[in-house]
């Protein structure tokens, strides 16, 4: 019991120090995340400006905890500025209205679909948009390849996607030296029997 009484303050001191070090390491990241959140609460046309101005303000604050508090203040500022809708937002709204009239939901900067990624979209939106765009382009490319011979009057090509087994085979058709060499495969596209 006496040992615990002696050691406990040391253990608590070490744990507190570790916790303080950990918190100190995470606070700049936390501050940055809060500022990003605050900037995203702003009208679209104000984000670029405050996205640069507020980190400049944070840079002038000496302590890490003070910086977090100021960053939290920016969240409230973002919420307060948002209702003061800017001219750009009104312009966006005038674009939004006719789209709504056709029963479509369009949020500028947040669309995931289209032939080009939305420049102001979130990273997830960008990835989804890029994937969709790649799929659209690939489909168009394949349709074009299939349509070309038809247009030119040639027979339709046979398009086959697959993985070829390039491992050398013996006369019996069995793989040679299966245990000695790894199986060699290659992805390929066959059009009319030609790789």
């Amino acid at each position: 019991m006496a040992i615990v009484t002696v050691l406990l303050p040391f253990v608590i001191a070490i744990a507190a120090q570790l916790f303080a070090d950990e918190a100190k390491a995470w606070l700049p990241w936390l501050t940055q995340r809060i500022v990003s959140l605050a900037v995203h609460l702003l009208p679209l046309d104000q984000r670029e400006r405050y996205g640069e101005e507020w980190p400049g303000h944070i840079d002038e604050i000496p302590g890490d905890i003070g910086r977090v508090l100021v960053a939290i203040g920016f969240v409230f500022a973002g919420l307060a500025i948002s209702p003061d809708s800017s001219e750009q937002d009104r312009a966006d709204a005038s674009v939004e209205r006719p789209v709504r009239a056709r029963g479509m939901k369009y949020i500028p900067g947040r669309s995931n679909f289209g032939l080009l990624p939305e420049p102001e979209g979130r990273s997830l939106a960008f990835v989804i948009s890029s994937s969709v765009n790649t799929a659209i382009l690939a489909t168009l490319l394949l349709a074009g390849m299939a349509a070309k011979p038809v247009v030119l009057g040639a027979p339709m090509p046979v398009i086959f996607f697959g993985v070829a087994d390039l491992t050398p085979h013996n006369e019996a058709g069995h793989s040679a030296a299966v245990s000695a060499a790894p199986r060699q495969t290659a992805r390929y596209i066959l059009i009319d029997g030609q790789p």
Partner: protein
Amino acid sequence: MRADSPRITGPTLKVLKELMQRPSGGLSGAEIARATGLASGTLYPLLFRLEKSAWLKSKWEDVSPSEVKRPRRRLYQVTALGEAKTREAFKEFLPDLTEPLWQL
């Protein structure tokens, strides 16, 4: 920027007074916050409204962030309209205003 008049409140006058005391160069948001004691959540909506009403103007600090190794500051200055409106507001609250505003 629209020229609607913002509401004249204590914090608004504090900010305008501080900016009029140091007319050259302008003050950053952090400097205004330090001088007035306003929290960032109060200060920036106020600056936004004052700038929207053309009482204030702001410009980026003329430095390269890569050279000074910190983000650029946005510097706020009172416009002629802002200065006139501020004097009007002070006269309304303090009719016997005779000394310069920055000595209040």
